[in-house]
């Protein structure tokens, strides 16, 4: 095919630029839309995943707890309520099995939002001295915007069933993705 060595006319060039620009704009918008979609979906998935992780963790521990207590000696004054949950569990023996607390030698687990970063849901574990349960604070989920506990009794320490509601959210491109889920759990050891 013979090349046009004499170049393009201005009209041709402008037309080319117009078409090229149009195509570029279209492609760029598709790309940006896709990128935005990707980012939003990514954020939504993160929020949903964190939410599910939080709910699974809390419901499993509630199932295994013996009772809800208003507070514990190591709980730094945190008391069970609408946003904080303190559970009492049997201590674990060397084999990881629950052993008789022999009176008051229980383990305690507390769930609440981190006081220094309210977007984090943390679990504080206070095992009895002879229990093999690991002590310390662990981040259960991030991006938590709301955490509420509802009890089937006005006195939470008498509750047999706890409803946990967790709301997680994340922001991407100025758009906030939110996931809210709840789970009703029975204290199997009560």
């Amino acid at each position: 095919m013979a090349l046009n060595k004499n170049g393009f006319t201005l009209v041709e060039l402008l037309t080319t630029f117009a078409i090229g620009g149009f195509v570029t704009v279209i492609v760029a918008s598709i790309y940006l839309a896709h990128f935005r979609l990707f980012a939003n979906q990514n954020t939504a998935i993160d929020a949903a995943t964190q939410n599910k992780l939080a709910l699974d963790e809390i419901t499993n521990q509630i199932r295994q707890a013996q009772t809800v207590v208003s507070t514990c000696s190591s709980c730094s004054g945190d008391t069970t309520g609408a946003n904080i949950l303190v559970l009492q569990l049997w201590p674990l023996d060397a084999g990881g099995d629950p052993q008789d607390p022999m009176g008051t030698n229980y383990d305690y687990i507390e769930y609440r939002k981190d006081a220094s970063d309210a977007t984090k849901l943390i679990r504080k574990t206070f095992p009895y001295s002879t229990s093999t349960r690991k002590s310390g604070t662990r981040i259960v989920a991030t991006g938590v915007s709301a955490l509420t506990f509802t009890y089937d009794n006005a006195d939470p320490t008498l509750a047999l069933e706890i409803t946990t509601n967790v709301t997680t959210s994340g922001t991407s491109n100025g758009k906030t993705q939110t996931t809210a889920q709840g789970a009703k759990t029975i204290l199997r050891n009560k």
Partner: protein
Amino acid sequence: MAKLKLRPRAPKQSSVTNNMKQETRNKKPDSLRFQVSSLKLKSGQVLIITIIFLTVILILSTSLFTRVTSFLRFGSNSIMREQAVNLAEAGIDKTLWQLNQTGGTYSGETNTAVGTTGTFTVTVADKSPGIKTITATGYVPSANAPKEKQVIKVDTSISTSVIAFRYAVQVGTGGVNMSNSASINGNVYSNKLGPDSILGSGQSAINGDAYAVGTISTPAPTVTGRKFQNQQPSQMPTLDYQQWKDAATAGGVTTCPGGSCDFSGSTIANIGPQKYVGSFNVSNSVILTMQGPVYITGNLTLSNSAKINLDNSFGSNGTVLIVDGTVSVSNNATFNPTSANPKGYILVVSTSSSDSAISLSNHGQTAVFYALSGGAQVSNQANATALVANSLSMSNQSQLDYDSGLASSSFSTGPGGSWTIRKGTYHFK
């Protein structure tokens, strides 16, 4: 980067050849002409650019797709994990039911399908007397190729006192005295030291083995099993009186009017858990159903076809009727066990030290009688399942028919004394 070059305007030509004119006609004015030699896209470049562009989009799409897929898998696994937990819980619930149905003999089952969701496998192991460990495993969708598996372990206990009545008759230092055609169908142990630890006369018979710390008289009673004389004293079954009194009192206290609670006529009523302050007289065709332990501070008299039944909800467990005074049962009056297999019996206890702490006569009684400090008098075709007393006197065709299930019988404070989860032990493995 392609560069555009503006070519300088060419000088005007006034004379041109035809060919040149023709060429000139075909050309655009030079002033509008650009040199784009370096701008020209070579063949295939557009394709390459397109491919690069598509690749970027594809990478992003794949990344998002992978993320979505892993999230869906996460959600799916989460659901299956929850299903596996529920299957394991189903296994635990069924095990508790089975333990209560079989009197604690159930040992588990394997790969029981629950619909098409999955299966569960349960094992039951003895941890200590009265405590069993249930290990339930839920599989989704099957144990052979599980996508998800959850193991739950829990201890189950029965809020009962396990009391071993190993002998049809076990007596303390008072010994056994059998006369006429009295018979005992089961083994006998007498802790009386010296001669005639077991004394028989007439046609009395022991259809089982006879153990005595002292000696056993001859020729009566006839012993169809083996005779063991000069044995070591045997530990008597123990019972925590106060525990049972407290359990009964927890249900409430009834003060008998005039010091006597009387049931007669055709009364049908439920009793227990309850403490009765005074004597307790049941006669004629009264039917009382025990739904918990009963504590009577006075005497208990049961006569004339009156019945005290143990509620069937006790299953294979029994409960206790404890009396501070004496127990007198006569004239076809009966204590009836549950219909379970093995049966749950009423344990009739007298804390009295009287020689006639327990008196049974004229047909009837199917219960276990216990008077550790007092004596028991059994006469006139009276019938008991097992008896523990300091001394025993049997006469006139009275009969004791031992139930082998009493070797490890359980007595509970109520129907709630069935096998239940031991609080605190439920945990995931």
